[in-house]
């Protein structure tokens, strides 16, 4: 079921088309990775969904209904730069935001407990590291137990341990039934935790799909590394096999790219000849390759 639906979103800033007929569908209970190069329109899209930037044209629907101020109660938002009141304590910040959403101060305590950051309650935000500020930002996002969570580049500038914590937290929130939409340029983490990805370029959605399906649709090649002897004659043989692309020698290894049925045929041929095959490594295409292939026109 589509939880958040964006249709034909257009936005222009000073004559520059930031979004051009952008479509997006986020399904209930999934983690949706929103990818795109810098300036592609990711943050603008998220800000429009949150009502922070006026849209020129297009529709946004949450569970089939337009997002009114009241419906925003069911959305939690974490901007790219964690922006809390630095002179206030963590607890005061969370109580303030709880009250803006119509909850009492116990809600602030609840979210701190849920994220196990009760110990930070009396500390002023300005004294916290970026990692801890991000945790407090995440707590702020969870106020009121919203069904949809929107995070703009949440792992940007964080150290690996906090990044890991954040990813685990997102998986955990998904298990609790939350729908999560997050933008990122760290492709590895998107691949690791997202159910589906949407790739945006020049303000338009290039594609959105399950990652495995994307690699099939784009017919991306696997990278195959083979250690076989004798090197020179086996390299000549491999280079001439059907479907083998970009063959080269890297140290003692032969490296080439191959996709679909050609991959199986090539490997079968390699093993069926009199060459001594000592090692074979297969690298499946990763999101980076999907991303590069889809946005290569922009580069």
């Amino acid at each position, binding site marked *: 079921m589509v939880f958040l639906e964006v249709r034909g979103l257009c936005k222009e800033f000073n004559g520059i088309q930031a979004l051009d007929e952008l479509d997006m569908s986020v399904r209930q209970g999934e983690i949706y990775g929103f990818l795109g190069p810098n300036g592609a329109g990711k943050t603008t899209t998220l800000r429009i969904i949150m009502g922070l930037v006026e849209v020129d044209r297009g529709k946004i629907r949450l569970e089939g209904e337009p997002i009114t*101020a009241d419906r925003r109660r069911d959305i939690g938002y974490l901007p790219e730069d964690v922006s809390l009141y630095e*002179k206030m304590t963590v607890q005061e910040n969370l109580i303030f935001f709880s009250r803006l959403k119509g909850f009492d101060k116990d809600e602030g305590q609840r979210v701190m407990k849920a994220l196990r950051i009760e110990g930070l309650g009396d500390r002023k935000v300005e004294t916290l590291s970026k990692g801890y500020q991000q945790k407090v930002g995440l707590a702020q996002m969870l106020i009121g137990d919203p069904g949809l969570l929107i995070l703009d580049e949440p792992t940007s500038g964080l150290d690996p341990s906090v990044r890991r914590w954040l990813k685990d937290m997102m998986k955990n929130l998904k298990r609790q039934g939350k729908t999560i939409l997050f933008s990122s340029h760290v492709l590895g983490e998107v691949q690791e935790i997202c159910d589906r990805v949407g790739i945006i370029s020049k303000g338009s959605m290039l594609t959105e799909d399950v990652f495995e399906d994307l690699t099939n649709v784009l017919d991306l090649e696997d990278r195959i590394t083979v250690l076989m002897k004798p090197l020179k004659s086996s390299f000549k043989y491999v280079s001439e096999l059907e479907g083998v692309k970009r063959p080269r020698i890297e140290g003692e290894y032969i490296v080439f790219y191959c996709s679909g049925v050609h991959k199986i045929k090539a490997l079968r041929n390699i093993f069926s000849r009199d060459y001594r095959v000592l090692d074979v490594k297969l690298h499946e295409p990763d999101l980076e390759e999907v991303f590069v292939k889809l946005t290569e026109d922009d580069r």
Partner: protein
Amino acid sequence: MKFKRISLLYSRDMWSRIYFIAHKEFKTKVRSGWILALIAVFVSMSLLVTFYGASLEEGLHWHHLEEAVMYMVGYMEFMAPILGIIFGYGSIVQERESGTLELMSSYPLDRGEIIAGKFLGLWGIIALSVGLGLGAGGVILSTQVERMIWSEYYLFIFSSILLGGVFLSFSMMLSTVFRTSNSSMCGSIFILFLYNILWLFIMYTIAELSFGWDTMVEGISPPTWYFVMQLFNPVIIWYTLLTLNIPALRLRAMELGGTEGTVYPDIYQTWSMIILLIVWIAIPLLISEYMIRRSDVC
């Protein structure tokens, strides 16, 4: 649509959110060290001006209420607007720069509530500063002068709080319009100069070119349109409100300006001056509300 706006106006949630924003503003400012220092300086300055104002003409004694109030009026004419500007110029633009406006606006509230909440919280700080400053001055003065007229003094405090609110409202409007704190501060300072210094020259030039300034000095009251034009300056409205209610102040001011023949038109009444000050608070606030609603938050 109309129905929706009206129901929003009476929504209890809306007033709660305004209260929480105002409370946060008030609390964080009161806790801030430099704000407390500012209030302390303000109180000390008030006492100093009260003392010297009262004693200037008759040696170092406190016994002339009118003299004291007159000097305090001269002091408040600048201090109340300065307080308004200090608290107002960064109120929106600094939140925009730090990103907290983006976060707050992502919550289910109307952006007008942010303006209203901030204004009320900051106006509360101004009321506290002016109340403490002039209140302390009044208490000391009452023990020293022969006849303390508290009603006049309360009006002086109340109107000064209104004047601070006017300049707070102006600087909040500029804080909404401008994208950097520096531009907002410069705009606010210009407003202060316009109304406290430039206005005199503008009105003098207009008077000279139309009916001639000398006629006022010669005891002839200027035409009504001249008085109406003066109402475009909230500082003049405030001053008029005081002179209407503190006879000694009016007499002394006219003596100094040589304009004893000036007769206020009928529109110059206590109630109308109070309403006009409130209108001067409301207009910039409404513009701020319009601007923040139609512009992108980030």
